[in-house]
């Protein structure tokens, strides 16, 4: 009879235990919250807890210092709790008595239950604090709404959430407005330069990334990259214009751009036909940018140098600009009077220089295509798109200029030499790479053979060795004779 009754009793006990533990936790957190209100009751508990909660600790400064015994930051301190009925009785003495564990142990019939909690907190205050700090640090925010606080306090408790949510709302709003801004700029560019009877319509038979007539002109890649493709023109295979906008849709990037300003850029890449481009390597950019280009672009680094002086007796580019070219002849022929007059000359550059970034013509570009003309410009606002008309006009102009251009025989011999040299080096590199691969293969084969040899039985090895020795004897015999004769 006793056993079943015990068993029957057991589950409620277990639940009670859990409830008590929960209540302990909750009451602890409440104590952390409300200890300011019943300060005269628990100076010791506050003293023990103020390591966790700085604000409460500050409030506490002018109160008399806690008694020295109070190192025991026993958990069941709060008198406020009405839920945990059995607790308050032992709690108040627990704070004052040096042996709170025993009290708990005796008065409640939950034998051995509070011991694991009480004893460590008695023995070593520090780990107990560490244990309790977790729930108490977490609890205030969760306990806050339950204990109807004033709006100001609520605001303070949820300041992080409020800030983050409002930022997210701003982010979403900015996403849509920024997206529309970027799209507007791209559309303004397309209507200006790619619609009927515009520059690109007159020069290319296929506009847009599709193959039919009703395909959209622009290809959107992400929210800040737009592409425009055109093809079907003499001398070139196709032209790809890539507009890279500022990340207007991204609020965080916008903040970054406040520190590191960026501009909307457009890059035209024209892939020339193989037979339509002679040996031309030329780059024009602002002086600083030209130097970095000369260092970074492999073709410029290899074949070209920064021109220090203009060709004699000619108008030349603006002082802000530097020309990187393979030879003076090429530079002189490529930068024609018309180009100087329109964009790169001193006078024109004052007006249009702000839209110009760089120009790079090369027949040795590192990449999937070798013969490529690259133009980089700054995109104006959607409303002043016509300001870059002259710059855009450079693209078809240079396609024709380069397509028709033939080097003089004298310059050609020079560039031929450089290119054959480069080709030879590339060939050598390829060969060495191939040889390396071959050697690696051979080494692998050898390894395999050796492994196979090791697998052979000792006898077979001996036989083989004998055979080899015999062969060598045969070989060495006549050789000696030959030498003697």
């Amino acid at each position, binding site marked *: 009879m006793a056993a079943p009754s015990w068993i029957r009793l057991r589950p409620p006990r277990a639940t009670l235990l859990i409830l008590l533990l929960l209540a302990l936790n909750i009451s602890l957190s409440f104590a952390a919250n409300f200890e300011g209100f019943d300060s005269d009751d628990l100076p010791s508990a506050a003293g023990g807890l103020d390591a966790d909660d700085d604000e409460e600790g500050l409030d506490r400064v002018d109160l008399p210092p806690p008694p020295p015994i109070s190192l025991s930051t026993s958990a069941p301190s709060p008198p406020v709790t009405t839920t945990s009925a059995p607790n308050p009785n032992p709690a108040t003495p627990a704070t004052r008595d040096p042996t709170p564990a025993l009290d708990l142990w005796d008065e409640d019939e939950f034998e051995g239950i509070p011991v694991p909690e009480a004893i460590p907190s008695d023995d070593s205050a520090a780990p107990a604090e560490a244990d309790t700090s*977790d729930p108490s640090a977490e609890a205030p925010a969760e306990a806050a709404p339950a204990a109807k606080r004033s709006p100001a306090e609520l605001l303070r408790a949820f300041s992080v959430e409020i800030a983050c949510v409002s930022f*997210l709302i701003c982010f979403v709003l900015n996403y849509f407005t920024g997206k529309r801004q970027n799209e507007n700029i791209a559309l303004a560019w397309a209507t200006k330069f790619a619609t009927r009877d515009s520059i690109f319509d007159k020069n290319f038979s296929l506009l847009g*990334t599709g193959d039919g007539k009703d395909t959209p002109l622009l290809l959107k890649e992400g929210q800040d990259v737009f592409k425009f493709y055109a093809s*079907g023109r003499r001398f070139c295979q196709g032209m*790809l214009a890539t507009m890279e906008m500022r990340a207007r849709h*991204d609020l965080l990037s916008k903040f970054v751009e406040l520190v590191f300003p960026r501009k909307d850029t457009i890059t035209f890449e024209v892939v020339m036909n193989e037979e339509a481009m002679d040996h031309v390597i030329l780059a024009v950019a602002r002086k600083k940018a030209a130097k970095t280009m000369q260092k970074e672009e492999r073709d410029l680094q290899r074949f070209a140098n920064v021109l220090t002086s203009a060709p004699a007796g000619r108008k030349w580019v603006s002082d802000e600009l530097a020309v990187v070219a393979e030879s003076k002849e090429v530079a002189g022929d490529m930068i024609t009077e018309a180009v100087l007059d329109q964009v790169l000359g001193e006078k024109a550059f004052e007006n249009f220089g702000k839209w110009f970034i760089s120009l790079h013509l090369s027949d040795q570009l590192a990449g999937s295509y070798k013969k490529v003309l690259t133009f980089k410009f700054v995109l104006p606002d959607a409303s002043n798109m016509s300001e870059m008309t002259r710059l855009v006009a450079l693209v078809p102009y240079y396609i*024709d200029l380069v397509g028709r251009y033939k080097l003089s025989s004298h310059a050609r011999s020079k560039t031929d030499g450089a290119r054959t040299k480069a080709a030879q080096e590339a060939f050598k590199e390829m060969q060495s790479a191939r040889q390396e691969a071959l050697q690696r293969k051979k080494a692998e084969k050898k390894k395999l053979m050796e492994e196979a040899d090791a697998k052979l039985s000792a006898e077979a090895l001996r036989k083989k060795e004998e055979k080899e020795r015999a062969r060598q004897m045969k070989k060495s015999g006549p050789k000696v004779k030959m030498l003697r004769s």
Partner: protein
Amino acid sequence: MKEGSSSGGGAFAGGSDPRQPSTAKPYAPPKLSPQDLPIDYAGFLAVVFGVVGVMLRYKVCSWIAIIFCAQSLANMKNFENDLKQLSMAFM
């Protein structure tokens, strides 16, 4: 002036139309391998902050993770629509 330069290609060719419909090639988007894609810093940061937030139970970290998540989503290109980071950060 502008007109002159814009039709300059045509003028150089002796008035003939520079267009050659026969040589037109449709656009072929360049093949991109996943390794060549630019690193998604925002997504990476979102995951880092998300993990830190979960591990150390800092709410601020989790919120920052959500914000970076939003940034990574906003910067997402068409092809890389993996929402792994999102779920990671929301945990």
